[in-house]
């Protein structure tokens, strides 16, 4: 086990009242999420916008503080660390964002951008320069790119710079948050291949956050499906795609457009849209959209039920059939 999340939750207060100083409610962005990521594996978090997948990634790296719950990295409880110790652990966990370009300082050269994390960690200028020259070819950039500025690069190349920057401190764990979603289709496959290649070469562990079920099927070892702040199903990739148990997972899979024309797919078995995290439905939070809804679903919040082989699903139907 490399990283373990236990009952993680992040609630944001909604301020109301005349002066905006009263708490009028809670946005339950992440609402009790537990999972383990083994060393060297890729766990994918999938779900639609607002399901809490990005917030979960930020909680794991403690970029934001959880409302409740703990994160354990190897043998360290990172939720309890002080600033100094946290900095040491954080070097080993890095993030790759959807739109790397927008997070770059436009006045810094590529070399300076890639070396910035090392520089902040106290590395010497000589070491930084050497590491940059080592990283550029690894991410498919040329040595002469080092002295250029981010605006001179295409979206795919900027994402390569972002990946080099994330790898500068030789992390063990990388959170990839929608790393190819903003890229042109013809460039997505290149960046996916780069990420999977780097993982093999450096034994990286990934949390891969994506809404794209095709990409996830290609990169993940295990997949967790999130809905309104909860994991509703988790399984190894083959099981999840072959025999999804939760109605929401089935709806997501049925909604992916076909690969070839003529392969008529069944009509999507989903109605309506994601409910609001401000007003989470009672009972099972998916019951407002579920075609199989039963009376119990409106009152009882189902827990993840173990179906064997690491496959778990939070659905009352699964409970009755097992």
């Amino acid at each position, binding site marked *: 086990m490399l990283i373990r999340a236990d009952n993680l939750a992040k609630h944001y207060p909604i301020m109301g009242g005349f002066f905006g100083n009263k708490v009028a409610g809670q946005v339950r962005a992440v609402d009790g999420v537990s999972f383990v990521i083994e060393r060297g594996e890729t766990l994918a978090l999938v779900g639609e916008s607002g399901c809490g997948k990005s917030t979960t990634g930020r909680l794991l790296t403690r970029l934001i503080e959880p409302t409740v719950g703990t994160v354990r990295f190897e043998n360290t409880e990172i939720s309890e660390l002080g600033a100094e110790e946290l900095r040491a652990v954080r070097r080993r966990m890095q993030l790759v964002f959807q739109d790397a370009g927008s997070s770059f300082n436009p006045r810094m050269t590529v070399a300076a951008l890639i070396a910035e994390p090392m520089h902040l960690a106290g590395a010497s200028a000589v070491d930084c320069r050497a590491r940059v020259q080592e990283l550029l070819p690894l991410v498919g950039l040329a040595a002469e790119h080092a002295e250029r500025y981010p605006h001179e690069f295409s979206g795919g190349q900027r994402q390569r710079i972002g990946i080099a920057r994330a790898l500068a401190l030789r992390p063990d764990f990388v959170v990839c948050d929608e790393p190819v979603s903003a890229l042109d289709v*013809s460039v997505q496959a290149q960046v996916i*291949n780069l990420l999977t290649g780097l993982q093999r070469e450096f034994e990286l562990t990934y949390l891969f956050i994506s809404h794209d079920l095709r990409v996830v099927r290609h990169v993940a070892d295990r997949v967790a499906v999130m809905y309104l702040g909860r994991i509703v199903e988790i399984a190894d990739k083959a099981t999840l795609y072959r025999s999804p148990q939760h109605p929401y997972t089935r709806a997501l899979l049925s*909604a992916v457009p076909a690969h070839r024309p003529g392969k008529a797919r069944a009509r*999507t078995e*989903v109605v309506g*849209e994601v409910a609001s995290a401000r007003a989470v439905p009672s009972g099972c939070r998916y019951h407002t959209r579920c075609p199989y809804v039963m009376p119990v679903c409106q009152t009882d919040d189902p827990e993840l039920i173990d179906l064997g082989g690491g496959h778990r699903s939070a659905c009352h139907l699964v409970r009755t059939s097992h």
Partner: protein
Amino acid sequence: MVQFLLRQPKMADSPLLSVHDLTVAFDTRRGPFEAVRGVSFDVQPGKTLGVVGESGSGKSVTAMTLMRLLPDSAEVTAGTVHFAGRDLGRLSERDMQAVRGREIAMVFQDPMASLNPIFTIGHQVMESLRLQLGLSRAAAKTRAEEFLALVRIPSPRDILRAYPHELSGGMRQRVMIAIALSCGPKLLIADEPTTALDVTTQAQILELLRDLQGSLHMAVLLITHDLGVIAEFADDVMVMYAGRAVERSPVAALFEKPGHPYTEGLLRSMPPLDDEDPEVLPAIEGNVASPFDLPSGCSFHPRCPYAWDACRLQSPPLARLADNHDAACLRVTC
């Protein structure tokens, strides 16, 4: 309830929209460039033409040209657009205004950007009905309600009183579709209509569009970067790269036997959902060509696995591959 829209399909073979050799140039601070370069295509009545391409391929500029909604920095330097027998380029602005909305309607990627935040949904749906069809307030309201029901919006009467920010992205897009369809267009231009939506919402909107297209016998020009959306929705496809049409084909033939290396590369690089998954995805190398710095000859040659010397010199025209299937590649021409 929307009987007036249910046209009988005509037996005529003539295309509803016929674009010939269209070229659009932009003059920007970075210098002039051509966003669309000699593009020709037809849209048949009641059919869907899918236009696929990446950022900068010229697909959206093509759509804006059809509507004559190009910015001042752009100019149509060559080509013609014929719609239902008329040359749209020669229409007066007044006549063109009558074509927009009434005969050709448009739906965009971001419905929030097209809806006015300070007016209710009802006001905005009724506005086009009153302006375009000259309906009275009461008649427009009834029609608006019918259309919101048609796009499967629950409790349309309440939604008429709602403001855009009170609706979800999927609901806003349904409202945009209702507005677009409310005047009974013969052609709907849908520019990335589901790109900003979640997958489950995307599937619902595409199903809605397909159902409405069938019942209203309307032609659709569907612009998207997503080949999956094309596979499900289009009858014919045009693939664009760097401002040119590099392939035109019926949808089945395109997926079965792509004629252009770019199309082939796009199809191969899509991770499969049910077939064998390759360890390394067959990616297209290199980066999308910049319109300011186009490669010589065929714009795709620096990324093409089949390129040879001649590809650097010649830009091949579309050539016939099979029935209604053309590709602009020297491998076809030679």
